[in-house]
C-alpha cells in the first residue's frame, strides 16, 4: 500500500500541474495557444483596425499608439508596419500613416466580423453582456466573408451591433450611428439611447451594471460638472460626466413618453395587485423577449400577481387567463402601471 501522505502530496502536485497547464486563460497551454494565434496576420489586422479607428475619431495613428493598442514593443510595431506597407495595405505620407483602399477593405471586414459576432452572441447564445467584446476580439480574425454573409442572413440582416455600432455592409459601406453624447442633450428634452461605447472596458462595465441598453428612452434632469442625473426607461441614474459621455443619444420629438419616469416594474407588484404592462425593457433580448411575447406579455396586457413562492422567488402571475411563474430578474424587465381593480 502506498503511503497515504505521499499519495496525497503526489496527487496535489499533479492537480497543481494540471491547473497550471490547463487553467482557462491563465494556464500554460491556453496561453501558448493564444500566442500561437497572435500570428503576424492577426497583429496586422489589429493594427489596421487601430489605424481605422484613429481615422474615424480624427486622431493621428503613430507607431507608439499602435504598439500601445496591440501590447507590443515599438520595434515590433515598426516591423509590423513595414510588412503591412509591403502588402500594400497602408502607405506613409508626410510621416503620417494612411490606409490604402485595400487596407480600408480589410478594416471594414474585421469590423463587420466583430460587430456581427457580437450581435450573434447577444441574440443566439447565453453569454453575458460583459463577455461579448472579448469573444468578438478573437473571432473577428477567424471568419471568412462567406461565413459572414451566412451569419448575416441567419441574424436577419441586422444593421447594428448590440452596443449600437452600425455593421458595415458586405460592400464595405458604413453609416455612423448619428447620436450625440448624453452630456450635450438639453435638460428635460426626451431622447433615446442609440449607442453605448464598449471601450474602455471599465466604463462600459459601469454602463452595463446600471442596466442601460440601447433603445431605452432617456431624459436628463440635471447636468453639473460633477454628475449627470437622468431617467432611463423609468429608472433614475446618476453618473459621472465622463461615464455619461460614453452614452450616445438621439433627441426624440416631444410626445408623452411610453414609459413615464419612476415607473414601477412587475417585480414590485405584490400578490393580489393588478397592473397593466407599459413596455418590455430593451435590455431584454433574444429568446427571453420572444418568450414574453409568446406568453402574451404586451403593452396593455393586464397582469395580476397571484402568489409568491415560499422561498421568495419566483412569483406566479395571471397573464391572459394562464398562471405563469416568473423570476424576479425577469419581472424587472417589465415596466407596469398599477391598476385599481374592482374584483378581477
Amino acid at each position: 500500500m502506498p503511503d497515504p501522505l505521499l499519495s496525497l502530496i503526489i496527487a496535489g502536485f499533479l492537480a497543481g500541474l494540471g491547473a497550471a497547464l490547463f487553467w482557462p486563460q491563465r494556464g500554460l497551454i491556453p496561453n501558448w495557444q493564444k500566442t500561437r494565434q497572435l500570428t503576424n496576420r492577426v497583429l496586422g489586422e489589429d493594427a489596421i483596425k487601430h489605424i481605422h479607428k484613429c481615422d474615424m475619431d480624427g486622431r493621428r495613428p503613430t507607431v507608439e499608439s499602435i504598439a500601445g493598442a496591440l501590447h507590443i514593443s515599438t520595434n515590433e510595431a515598426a516591423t509590423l508596419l513595414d510588412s503591412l506597407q509591403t502588402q500594400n495595405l497602408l502607405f506613409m505620407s508626410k510621416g503620417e500613416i494612411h490606409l490604402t483602399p485595400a487596407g480600408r477593405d480589410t478594416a471594414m471586414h474585421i469590423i463587420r466580423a466583430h460587430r456581427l459576432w457580437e450581435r450573434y452572441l447577444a441574440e443566439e447564445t447565453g453569454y453575458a453582456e460583459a463577455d461579448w467584446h472579448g469573444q468578438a476580439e478573437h473571432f473577428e480574425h477567424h471568419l471568412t466573408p462567406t461565413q459572414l454573409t451566412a451569419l448575416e442572413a441567419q441574424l436577419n440582416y441586422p444593421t447594428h451591433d448590440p452596443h449600437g455600432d452600425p455593421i458595415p455592409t458586405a460592400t464595405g459601406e458604413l453609416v455612423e450611428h448619428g447620436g450625440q453624447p448624453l452630456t450635450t442633450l438639453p435638460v428635460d428634452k426626451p431622447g433615446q439611447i442609440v449607442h453605448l461605447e464598449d471601450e474602455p472596458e471599465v466604463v462600459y462595465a459601469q454602463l452595463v451594471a446600471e442596466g442601460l441598453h440601447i433603445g431605452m428612452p432617456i431624459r436628463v434632469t440635471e447636468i453639473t460638472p460633477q454628475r449627470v442625473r437622468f431617467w432611463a426607461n423609468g429608472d433614475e441614474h446618476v453618473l459621472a460626466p465622463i461615464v455619461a459621455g460614453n452614452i450616445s443619444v438621439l433627441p426624440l420629438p416631444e410626445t408623452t413618453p411610453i414609459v413615464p419616469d419612476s415607473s414601477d416594474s412587475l417585480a414590485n407588484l405584490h400578490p393580489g395587485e393588478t397592473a397593466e404592462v407599459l413596455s418590455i425593457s430593451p435590455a431584454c433580448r433574444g429568446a427571453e423577449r420572444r418568450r414574453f411575447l409568446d406568453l402574451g406579455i404586451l403593452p396593455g396586457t393586464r397582469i395580476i400577481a397571484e402568489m409568491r413562492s415560499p422561498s421568495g422567488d419566483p412569483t406566479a402571475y395571471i397573464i391572459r387567463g394562464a398562471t405563469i411563474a416568473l423570476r424576479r430578474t425577469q419581472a424587472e424587465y417589465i415596466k407596469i402601471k398599477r391598476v385599481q381593480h374592482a374584483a378581477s
Partner: protein
Amino acid sequence: MTTYTPRMNELNGQGETAVRETDILQTAETLRWQIGQNFHEQLMEDIYTEAARIADRAVTRAGEKPRFDMDRTIDHIVTSRVWGFPLMVLLFTVVFWLTISGANVPSGWLSYIFLDTLHPLLKEGATAIGMPWWLSGLLIDGMYLATAWVVSVMLPPMAIFFPLFTLLEDFGYLPRVAFNLDNIFRKSGAHGKQALSMMMGFGCNAAGVVATRVIDSPRERLIAIITNNFALCNGRWPTQILIASLFIGGLVPAYLAGFVSAMAVVGIAVLGVFLSFAVSWGLSRSILKGEVSTFSLELPPYRPPRIWQTIYTSVIDRTMIVLWRAITFALPAGAVIWLSANVMIGGVSIAEHLINLLNPLGLLIGLNGVILVAYIVAIPANEIVIPTVLMLTVLVTGATGVGAGAGVMFEMDGSAVRHLLDAGGWTLLTAVNLMLFSLIHNPCSTTIYTIYKETGSKKWTLIATMLPVVMGFIVTFLVAQVWRLLAG
C-alpha cells in the same frame, strides 16, 4: 441587379425604368439605416399587440371568469410559507415509502420464479437435451441470469414509482413543487423543474433524463441531464442498503443497527442531491455559459387525475421503455460476465487477469480490483453490481461451498456475504468507498444511450459519462488517503 439593368435599357431604349429601380434600391438602402436598430423586434411586438387588440375587441367572453376557487385554495395551501415544504416532504416520503416497501414483495416473487425456479429448470433442460456446458453456461448462466436479475430487481419499484409520480404530475402538483423549490435551483444556475427530473432520477436515471424534456431552456436542460446521475437510482439502492447494513450497521449495537444503516443510505442520497447542486453551479458558470437560458414556469389548473389512463401510459411509456432498454443491455452484459470468468488465458480467467491488473489502482482509492471489474462489466445495469462482486470474489478467493460456479451470479444471506467479503480483504473503508463510488460513477449504459438520444450530441454524452467517474475517483482517493492517515 447589375446584369439585369442593361437588358432593361435595351428594351425601352430610354433606361428610365432602370434608373427608377436603382432609385428604389438606393432609397431602400437609406431607409434601412433610418428605421431604427430594433425594427424586427418592434415589428414583431406590434403584430402581437395588434393581434391581441383585435382578439380582445372581437371575442366576447361570458363575463371575466375568476380563477376557479378550488384551484386558488389548493394553490395557496401547497405554496404557502407554512405548509408548502412540509406537505412536499410528506408527499414524497409517502411515494418513496410505498415504492420501497411495496416493491419488496413482487421482487421476491419474481426472484423466486426467474432465479430460484426457472433457472435450475432451464439448466436441467439444457443438460437433458445434451447442450454442451459452455453453451448452456453462456446462454443460461450468463445472458438469461443477468436479464432475469435486472428484471426482478428493476421492474417492481419502477412499476410502482412511475404511476405514483405520473398521478402527481397529472393532478398538477409537480409544477408547484418546481415553483416552491425554484429559488434554490436558481442559485445554482438551474431550473426549478430540475427538482422533478431529479425526483424521477431516484426511480431511474434514464427516465429522469427523459423527464428533463419539461425544461424548455437549453442551458438548464443540459444541466439537468448531466447532473441527473447524482440522484441515487433504484438500481443502486440495494447496493447501498446491503453494504450499509453489513458494514455500518455492524459498528453499533444491534438495536441501533437498522436505524444507523438507514441513515447512512439517506446520507449518501442527500450527498447526491448536494453534489447535483454543486455540479449544476459549476457547469452553469463554465462549459455551459454560452447556452441560451430563459425561464418560465406554467402552473396549469388542477384536474382530477385519470387513474387508469395514467397507470396504463406510465407503465407503457416509462416502465416498459426503460425495462426494454435495460434488457437489451443486460443480455450482452450477462454473456460478457460469464465469458470473462470462464475463458482462460494461460490457465487464468480473463476476469482474474483484469482484477490483478486493476487491483493496485483499486487499493489505492480504497476499493479493490474486484469492485472495479464489477463496475466495468456492470455498466449495463447497476442492479448486477453486487451479484457480480460476489461471484468474482468467490473466483478470486477460491472460497468453497458458496456461489454457483464461475460466471454464475448469485446472492445470499447477509452474514455469509460479510464472511465472504472479509475473506476478499474488505474493510470498513472499502465499504464506505464502495457506497461513495456507487453514487459517484458513470451512468449505466441505458442512461448513457438515453442522454445521447435526448441531447443528440456526442460531446454532452461524453461529459455526462466521464464527469461523474472522474469525480468518483477523486472522492474515493481523497477519502482513502485521509482515512489511512487518521487511522495511522
